[in-house]
């Protein structure tokens, strides 16, 4: 209740006083309920209970998707006339500016971690590998969708080239954009997926979009396309792939930039 509300019943008719009291009570109860809801949202035990549903979602979708079905592929006529770019539009680092100016000739994709043969692959090398082109729908967590054509190399080929070591469970994508704007590595975008999704035929490292080189706003020179999951998993400006047995050692420990900020690691829903 608002303590500033004073009842001057002597100056009001009983009816007016009652109406004023009811109004104040309703406003007080309303803000109490509102504060109560926010307190419930911020309560760690309630939050942990809500998060338990994510495990159920992951387990059910893994069961349903165990045969690795393909995400729906569309035709050229379905391409979205405008494909919205979200998150970083242009990495701010001097290094990125230098690589962009040189048309990414000096750019390399590092592949390291739990691999037999660490790699440093140039864009030309990636483009020389067997490519896959797919027209798929990009689903943003915000609710909007857009259909685009992606050309790239299946991640499985790159992983096989490097050769996984025993114990490898996750593939972590390190990116060039400082979306957190911290100015150090803590704000750099990153993402992680497990090997089931990494070896899905539609999981590609895309260097082309809608028949052209990947635009800067969409992650030039290389971005991840992991169809069957939401947009924030589709890491842009990927420059290093780390194979690991866990992702908890990185930044917030939740396996990705947005995951560290409360979003689910499994983004199939």
């Amino acid at each position, binding site marked *: 209740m608002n303590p500033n509300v004073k009842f001057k019943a002597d100056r009001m008719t009983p009816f007016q006083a009652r109406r004023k009291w009811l109004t104040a009570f309703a406003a007080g109860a*309303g803000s109490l*309920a*509102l504060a109560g*809801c*926010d307190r*419930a*949202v*911020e309560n760690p035990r309630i*939050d942990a*209970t*809500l*998060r*338990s*549903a*994510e495990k*159920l*979602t992951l387990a059910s*979708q893994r069961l*349903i*998707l165990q045969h690795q*079905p*393909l*995400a*729906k592929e569309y035709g050229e006529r379905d391409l979205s006339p405008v494909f919205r770019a979200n998150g970083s539009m242009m990495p701010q680092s001097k290094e990125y500016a230098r690589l962009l100016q040189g048309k990414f000739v000096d750019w390399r994709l590092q592949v390291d971690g739990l691999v037999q043969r660490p790699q440093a692959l140039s864009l030309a090398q990636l483009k020389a590998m067997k490519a896959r082109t797919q027209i798929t*729908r990009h*689903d943003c*967590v*915000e*609710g*909007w*969708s857009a259909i685009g054509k992606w050309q790239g190399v299946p991640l499985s080929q790159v992983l096989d080239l490097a050769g996984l070591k025993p114990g490898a469970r996750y593939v972590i994508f390190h990116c060039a954009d400082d979306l957190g704007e911290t100015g150090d590595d803590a704000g750099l975008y990153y993402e992680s997926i497990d090997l089931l999704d990494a070896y899905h035929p539609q999981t590609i490292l895309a260097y082309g979009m809608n028949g052209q080189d990947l635009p800067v706003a969409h992650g030039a020179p290389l971005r991840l396309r992991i*169809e*069957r*999951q*939401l947009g924030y998993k589709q890491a842009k400006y990927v420059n290093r792939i780390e194979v690991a047995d866990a992702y908890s050692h990185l930044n917030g420990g939740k396996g990705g930039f*947005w995951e560290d*900020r*409360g*979003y*689910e690691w499994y983004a*199939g*829903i």
Partner: protein
Amino acid sequence: MLHLGSLTFETTGLLGASKEGGALAARGFPAWLTIPSYQDLAAGRRWHFFFAWLFAINGAVYLVAGLVSRHFRRDLLPTTTELAPGHLAHEVVTHAKLQFPKGEAARRYNVLQKLSYMGVAFVLLPLMVLTGLTMSPGMDSAFHVLLDIFGGRPSARSIHFICASLLVAFVVVHIVMVLVSGVWNNLRSMITGKYAIEVDGGAQ
């Protein structure tokens, strides 16, 4: 503001823009209507999906129990006489006048209740689940047919929202009817099963 032809509706405070912590902010719904009151999509999604699971499991139990116990067939399926246009029109008029059935007729759902309950249980609630699943890229990969049924993810999202709004409207009307048709009698019958029936020409 909403412009419909030459009409203009002021929506500030309800839709589009409302107060958030004292200052006017661009947001879909007002703070008192959302969990949490401030904008936090990640937290909102956690609440949404937790209760979506509860809703889907609860709904499945309800549908199976209603079929097995023949509750749907016995209590919800309208008879052909009830569906006759004359009877329907009569029910609409008495409903609008808030004249409620007396005697034996008060024991059963009237045809408007039957139709709206069936609409909610067999149309709106299943549509909520199915259009919700259609927004999941994972589910769409497993069942491409979802996209064919609902015309893609954006239209599934619209249908999801329309059905949710209709459910809110149903709940509001439902509660109003519970209140005006004898709230204590209704509440007591829900808990104890004892339901007082008014007979024409005097109380029972």
